[in-house]
């Protein structure tokens, strides 16, 4: 129910909201500003007005190849998402529509793996990667990121699938649909909004993932997150260049997020309001 709020209070809250939003966004904004500064300006101290030089961008692009880590990021993010969906759709389907006594436990157990710090399994995974030749390969990263995000993907899909009325699936069964036809023709199209937002979120998570990508790559498979990290080099910090690299790394995902924000918000609040 809407409550009557005086104009004064409204203005007050609006200002407060803008302030909080700006506070959260400020580090990114400052990185963007710094990327347009010269290195001298960058270390000089706090200053919001850059000299708008593109030198840092030029240098980043000439010294390091941006395209390669960019392509790696795309392949790893999209690849791990697609793979995760292939595994998670049937899993979530089974849990949502033929739950057993243990379904809730399994879901909790899957989520609990996310409570463990990733570094706890670094050594075993590192060794497995060394032995199997997955080290510094895109395939390796696709697999490991898919596994890392799988619990969240299954959870999200499970929640969406639970919203689909069971009678519709029963109707499909009465209409002669086999299990796979039921999933392909009825369940999946109805779950598209949910699947789409799960996909978007997973792409974002995979794109921004920095722990595994840095640990398990050197040059060949390094995505943009590792690309940024490589700028904090032992020769000393070059703030302007680091900022330029960061902006180049986050720009694609920011743009994607901007265009799909409606879908994302709808997906994340799906089922919350009836």
């Amino acid at each position, binding site marked *: 129910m809407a409550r009557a709020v005086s104009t004064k209070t409204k203005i007050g809250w609006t200002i407060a909201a803008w302030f909080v939003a700006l506070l959260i966004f400020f580090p990114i904004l400052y990185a963007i500003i710094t990327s347009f500064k010269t290195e001298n300006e960058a270390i000089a101290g706090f200053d919001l007005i850059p000299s708008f030089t593109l030198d840092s961008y030029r240098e980043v692009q000439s010294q390091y190849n941006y395209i390669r880590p960019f392509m790696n990021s795309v392949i790893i993010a999209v690849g791990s998402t697609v793979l995760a969906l292939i595994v998670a759709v049937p899993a979530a389907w089974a849990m949502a529509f033929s739950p057993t006594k243990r379904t809730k436990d399994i879901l909790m157990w899957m989520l609990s793996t996310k409570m463990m710090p990733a570094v706890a399994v670094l050594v075993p995974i590192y060794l497995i990667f060394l032995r199997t030749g997955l080290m510094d390969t895109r395939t390796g990263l696709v697999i490991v990121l898919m596994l890392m995000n799988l619990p969240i993907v299954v959870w999200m899909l499970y929640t969406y699938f639970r919203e689909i009325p069971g009678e519709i699936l029963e*109707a499909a069964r009465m209409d002669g649909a086999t299990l796979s036809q039921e999933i392909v023709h*009825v369940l999946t199209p109805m779950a598209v909004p949910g699947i789409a937002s799960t996909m978007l979120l997973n792409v974002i998570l995979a794109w921004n993932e920095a722990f595994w990508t840095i640990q398990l790559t050197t040059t060949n498979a390094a995505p943009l997150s590792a690309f940024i990290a490589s700028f904090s080099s032992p020769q000393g910090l070059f703030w302007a260049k680091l900022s330029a690299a960061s902006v180049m790394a986050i720009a694609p995902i920011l743009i994607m997020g901007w265009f799909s924000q409606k879908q994302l918000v709808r997906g994340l609040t799906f089922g919350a309001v009836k």
Partner: protein
Amino acid sequence: MGSITLKNVRKAFGDVEVIPGVDLNIEDGEFVVFVGPSGCGKSTLLRLIAGLEDVTSGQINIDGQDVTDAGPAKRGLAMVFQSYALYPHMSVRKNIAFPLKMAKMSEAEQEKRVAHAARILNLDNYLDRKPGQLSGGQRQRVAIGRAIVREPSAFLFDEPLSNLDAALRVNMRVEISELHNSLKTTMIYVTHDQVEAMTMADKIVVLRAGNVEQVGSPMELYSKPANKFVGGFIGSPNMNFIVGEGAAKHAAHTIGVRPEHWQLSTEGGEFSGTVGVAEHLGSDTFLHIHLDDGTPIIARAEGERDIHHGDKIFLTPQDGRIYRFAENGLAI
């Protein structure tokens, strides 16, 4: 063809027995209504026939074939759900054609059958719409269309009209009856509304707590209820029950008299009471009467009877219209 036989069909969910064991014969072409209060197991029984639930024990035969372990698709039945269960992402045309597509029928044949169903159900102008753009009654028709095109051996309806408003419900009731008359296919219809049961059925199956209380034609159930439960459930308003002295006079534990079977008088009669509420409907007047011993009674009087709250009234059951029940509820 569509004759269905249930032999000692039992269903339990864990330790809870929902259907203790039902035997039932449904002839080809019959319109059978399962009726009973909510939770009586009528929907479960329908779902067992549909194959959406597994039977715990017993056998289900369709046209002489044992289908007890066959999946829903293999039974050749079509079902119309309470929520309509249309596919929201498909147009009306695709919804109706879906079972045909699953049966891998040729496009031309699909087109022909969809057009035929749309014509019968007055859906010609809505074929390209999505279910979300239709009214409740239209959605119901689409659900029926999806059932018709398969040319099933029997239709199963699970409370199909309960989501519609009262006026539309009467229309759809007539439409479904007419559909049955023209298709002559077996129909099994589940409802808690005894008016639907009385008006549509060739044969009514009254259920209570998973048990079949009585099977018979609407008029059989009305005039010869096997027990107090059936007597009270069939007929609207409900049958009046009188116990004690009033019943003892008729050598019964309980007597039942339908509201329409009272002779009313202001001078004298077998029972006397006071009018609590008089509902003047125009065609009829329903009197809610309190007998002198406090028993509430409903009586139907002619529409223009001038009678009001607080009036003294005498009631006598019409000759041969008294239903007598023993203490265990069975009819005597």
